[in-house]
């Protein structure tokens, strides 16, 4: 009985303590964004700023090299939203094929898909660059966004594993109803996949958001640059860097990612258990 009454306070105490430990570095970053740029490193050991300054945010928001920071956010958002839609949709379709349909060559294609994950990207980068050049896609977001529409192995494999935890009886019920495969996918599997779709969306959003290599390689015009590139522009390895603005805009650039996470995490937890269709 005693345990019942203290269970929740103990739980919260533990969770909060752990969260603080995990979050110390994040707090450090947040607090640094309120310090005077030149004092960030001098006072690195103390978490709280001596004097709270907001100018880093105003300063950073003005942007770099003549472009307001909002331009970079907008550029990133376009890339990220398109990529995420493409990656999640195509991956779920492909995953359904791998997990629920039997056809010749299935295992071979699945193995090939896994193999593409194992080859370090550095060595295919130049030939890929040449292909995108051939397609006339340089200096556009196409080389970054279009491949997302052909499925992302990480998400495909993730969804395959989730589909395999869905009992087959559900399919059979649907098949008796006269559902075709496409309708089986759309009506039965997709709704049950909600949690992994949300997971994939969160990852895809974040991965594209922080991606630096793709934009560096393929975007030439500064008016197309992304947030990840802009953050580096606050820095100068040979002179004073605008650390304050960099930290401030790093914090700002977290906002869309956190917002998306907060909105989607509800769906992660609404798995099969609460979706009304139980096995």
């Amino acid at each position, binding site marked *: 009985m005693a345990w019942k009454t203290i269970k929740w306070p103990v739980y919260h105490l533990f969770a909060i303590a752990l969260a603080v430990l995990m979050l110390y570095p994040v707090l450090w970053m947040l607090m640094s964004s309120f310090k005077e740029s030149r004092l960030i*490193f*001098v006072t690195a050991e103390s978490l709280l700023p001596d004097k709270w300054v907001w100018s880093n945010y105003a300063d950073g928001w003005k942007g770099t090299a003549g472009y307001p920071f909002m331009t970079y956010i907008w550029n990133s958002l376009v890339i990220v939203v398109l990529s995420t839609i493409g990656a999640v949709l195509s991956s779920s379709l492909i995953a359904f094929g791998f997990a629920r349909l039997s056809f010749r060559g299935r295992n071979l294609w699945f193995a090939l898909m896994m193999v593409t994950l194992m080859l370090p990207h550095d060595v295919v980068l130049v030939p890929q*660059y040449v292909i995108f*050049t*051939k397609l006339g896609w*340089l200096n556009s977001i196409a080389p970054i966004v279009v491949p997302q529409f052909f499925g992302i192995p990480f998400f495909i494999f993730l969804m395959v594993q989730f589909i395999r935890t869905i009992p087959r009886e559900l399919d059979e019920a649907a098949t008796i109803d006269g559902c075709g495969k496409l309708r089986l996918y759309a009506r039965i599997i997709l709704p049950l996949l909600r949690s992994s779709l949300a997971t994939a969306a969160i990852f895809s959003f974040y991965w594209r958001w922080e991606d630096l290599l793709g934009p560096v390689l393929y975007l030439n*015009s500064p008016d197309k640059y992304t947030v990840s590139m802009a953050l580096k522009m*606050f820095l100068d390895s040979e*002179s004073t860097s605008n*650390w304050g603005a960099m930290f401030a805009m790093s914090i700002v650039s977290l906002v869309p990612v956190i917002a998306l996470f907060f909105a989607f995490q509800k769906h992660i937890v609404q798995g099969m258990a609460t979706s009304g269709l139980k096995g």
Partner: protein
Amino acid sequence: MKRRMLGLLAAVTLASTALSACSSGNDAPAGGSADDPVSLRIAWWGSDSRHAYTQQVIDLYTSKHPNVKIDVEYASFDDYWKKLAPQAAAKQLPDIVQMDISYISQYAKNGQLAELEPYLNNQIQVGDVSESVLGTGLLGGKQYGIPIGVNVLGFHYDPELLKKGGIDSIPADWTWEKYEEMARQTGSKGLYFDSGFAPDIFFNYYLRTKGETLYNEEGNALGYDDDKLFTDFFRIQADLVKEKALRSPDYLNQIKGVLEESDLVKGTGIGVFQWSNQFVGLQKAAARPLALAPMMGPDMEKGIYMQPSMYWAITNNSKAKEEAAKFIDFWVNDVEANKIIKGERGVPISSAIKEAIAGELDEPVKQVFDFVSEMEPKASPMSPPPPTGSPEVIAALADLIEELNFGRITPEQAAASFRKTASEVLAANK
């Protein structure tokens, strides 16, 4: 199999070449009349302030030449080279690229850069540029780059802290022995005299004072034969580190790449050995008056040289090389443009420009100009730019010196190991 793969590779490369011909930016016919519309791509590395003023210079140029459109591409130093490599492989390099001394050999030797000889004193006026400065853009006797500004090595320090360390001033003709003595002296007062030497640059300087060089003339072997030079030089700082008169390498690892964390900026160190164009940034970060002193000798004059801070180069891929050359000329010789640039990329190479903008400079920039002018007559010609493979040689040297300063290996072991690795890498250039 082999042949087929080659064919495939060739096909992909060829196709890309064909495409690059019709891609935007390069389609101006060569040798067209002066007012045909032409568009150029130009790329550089740097940070925010450089991007901003370079754009201003470009705007100034296009306002004077309305038929020219210039598209810019910029990135931080490391991203810049990541971007350029695939562009080169896909024949997509911009018309004008900013080149670094450590990369220019690679790009020039592999046919990526255009020879500039035909443009000199045609499109690009170099009458006000000294032979030795222009010569730094020569590779194997051919001009591949126009230096943008020049640098010279020196010691940048805080005179107040030096006094606090118990030393009144840097003696005019100081020597390595004197340097060691001073480092011990200030170290005993808790002030680090300097933050270490970039191994390849200062070893090369030391070798030059002894009449040797790091790389040989052809760039296919080391330029010095006696490993005693290696051990003599690197023992100096290894000993000082051991005595804790200089920072240990683990501390330096920790603060690497962050100027604001350096001892000089934090007030726990007296100075830094580095290139003159780095002075302004350092001074800005420290926000205290700083001074420049020449390198230590003996034979400092043999050791120092005017090094280009960076080059402008025209790529072979460019379809509008003459127009590109005209822009470089504008950069080098236009007074108005240089009043915007203010020597940010190093002291201008044209003596006329140097004079014309002298009155417009902020104090730290003026200090740099004066220092460079003082050193220029004393300097000896530069050795050829580091050969292909030098990044690997430099990395190997840096690793060995780290181990040496950690006390894991002896200077003799480091010398032998360096000779072996460097020789292997450089032999590929034969």
